[in-house]
């Protein structure tokens, strides 16, 4: 096994551990998102993305205010991705509800301070529950879902106008394919030839109300996206070599990686919470003990 893949596996393991530890400590958390997307975010931050290095893990910033007209010193969560540059990649994370998982990925890759999750959802902190653009790892404000693909399309178009060679990546969740704006963005990206726009989707087939098939079907997803003129690769979202291979494909169209995932991967006890996996809050001491046990297994 190549060192890259071992490293990414280790990041993915660290993401699940950190999110579970946080969930235990706070009696709640976005656990299934960590289980489904650990390999995706580990592959992005640990292998795919060409980011400038940061000299040392960055302190979790305190909230100092919202963006204001004429204030140019405002720092976004982009700083955790290193300085921008024409050859560097960008990452716009669309489902801000994955914030906890993204923060864990930043810690695992040395971009956010080790104790960063201690500031999660704490008053006055930017390590917010549903991140905004001051939150670590968030380059834009995307919590109102399906806006990131358009924003990233504009960034990719701007970079194309400047002849930049870096890719503009978007991390998306499958629920966003229920929103009309997603399809507007798909058609525009193809129309304007944004072949450096690349999207990686956590297709975990679950959303707030439960399994997507009971809420609003999105399949056949790959056919839909291909019909808009995109190149689509469908793969197992826990298969790191497959993710890396698909991510390195050079395509003449915007490229979508549909990564089918298991929302309880690495934490089988979560199976008992089906069909509603969106947010885990323990029902009592018994359930909590089961997760404590699972955590002990995980860190062995």
């Amino acid at each position, binding site marked *: 096994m190549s060192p890259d893949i071992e490293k990414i596996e280790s990041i993915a393991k660290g993401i699940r551990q950190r999110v579970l530890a946080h969930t235990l400590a706070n009696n709640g958390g976005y656990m299934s998102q960590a289980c489904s997307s650990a390999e995706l975010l580990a592959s992005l931050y640990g292998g795919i993305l060409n980011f400038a290095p940061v000299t040392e893990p960055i302190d979790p910033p305190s909230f100092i205010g*919202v*963006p*204001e*007209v*004429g*204030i140019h010193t405002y720092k976004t969560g982009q700083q955790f991705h290193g300085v921008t540059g024409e050859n560097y990649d960008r990452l716009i994370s669309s489902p801000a509800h994955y914030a906890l998982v993204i923060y864990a990925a930043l810690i695992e890759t040395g971009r956010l301070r080790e104790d960063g999750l201690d500031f999660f959802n704490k008053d006055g902190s930017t390590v917010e529950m549903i991140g*905004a*653009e001051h939150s670590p790892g968030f380059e*834009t*404000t*995307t*919590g*109102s879902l399906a*806006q990131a*693909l*358009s*924003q*990233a*399309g*504009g*960034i*990719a*178009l*701007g*970079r194309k*106008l*400047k002849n930049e060679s870096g890719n503009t990546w978007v991390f998306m969740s499958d629920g966003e394919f229920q929103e*009309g*704006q997603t399809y*507007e*963005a798909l*058609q*525009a990206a193809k*129309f*304007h030839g944004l072949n450096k726009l690349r999207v990686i989707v956590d297709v975990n087939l679950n959303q707030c109300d439960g399994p997507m098939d009971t809420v609003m079907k999105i399949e056949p997803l790959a056919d839909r996206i291909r019909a808009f003129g995109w190149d689509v690769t469908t793969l197992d979202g826990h298969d790191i070599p497959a993710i890396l291979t698909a991510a390195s494909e050079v395509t003449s169209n915007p490229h979508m990686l549909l990564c089918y995932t298991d929302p309880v991967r690495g934490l089988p006890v979560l199976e008992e919470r089906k069909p509603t996996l969106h947010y885990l809050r323990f029902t009592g001491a018994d359930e909590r003990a089961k997760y404590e046990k699972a955590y002990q297994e995980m860190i062995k």
Partner: protein
Amino acid sequence: MSYEIVARPHQQNFIDWAKDKPEVLVLSADLTNSCEVGKWRDTYPDRFFSMGMAEQNMLGMAAGLAREGFEPWLHTFSVFLYRRPLDQLQMSVAYPALKVRLVGFLPGIMTPGGVTHQAIEDIAILRAIPNMTILEVGDATEVESVLDVAHAIDGPVYIRMLRGEVSRIFPKDEPFILNTARILSTGTDITLFTSGIMTEEALRAISLLQERGVSISHLHISTLKPFTDPRIIAALKTAKHGVITMENHSIIGGLGSAIAEVMAERGIGVPLQRIGLKDTYAHGASQKFLMSEYEMDAQALIRAVEVSLGRKLNIHETELEQQRSVTVHSSAKAEAL
């Protein structure tokens, strides 16, 4: 009273203005010629981006382009810039305070396109959004000079724009100045604030009112947000009998409401009358017809002045008809919806 009529003042002026500004782009949503940027597209094809009928995505892509250092100028009808894509306008553009310019045509009841095309509550909605600047032009000089004003603002700007045949009311060498009212007359009985096309309509009645001995302060307001112009406060303080606002918009949330807020905050205790759409949708008809039907015309202003003064002024309709009417606009603008 007559004004020079300028044909399509935005069309060539915007081309000339953008010549040395390579960061200025145009995004259009299938209303390119209707918003007088067809020739701009042909002049700068590499800076023009057709977004199709997909305004939610257009707002998002504008945000991305602004983050990359470009200055997108979105051209479509007013109503399509904020009603459907309001969440995108707020979260993608306004929250990050990005330099996106929303050039909205056919504001209020200027379009015979009816309720779907009439932006009657845009100012109300956009005034409530942090980081927004809201401008409204009232003549050809402002159509031309609003570009520099918007360009200098380091955040999102919404412009209520005019197209087609536009009167030149203000001298060409007196450009639009941000947050600065134009004082068109001064007096002590009544203070009148008008915006957009309502200024020209009000001017039809002003001289008749003055002939009847009404002492009237008349200010043309072209910046709806921010709304901190000291000229407004000074003019309010001189009004002995009442204040009147006149806007091409709902009386809720626009110019009338902004004035009411200033009056309340400053303790200015004279009655306020707001001329505009009185909490109603409109329908498809000519501008002149709608202004009369919804009591937004010069007649309505005269009636409001009479209420403020508590006396009849006996101005006959024929006298008003002899003043310049805006009929020319309605016939010229029926085309090219």
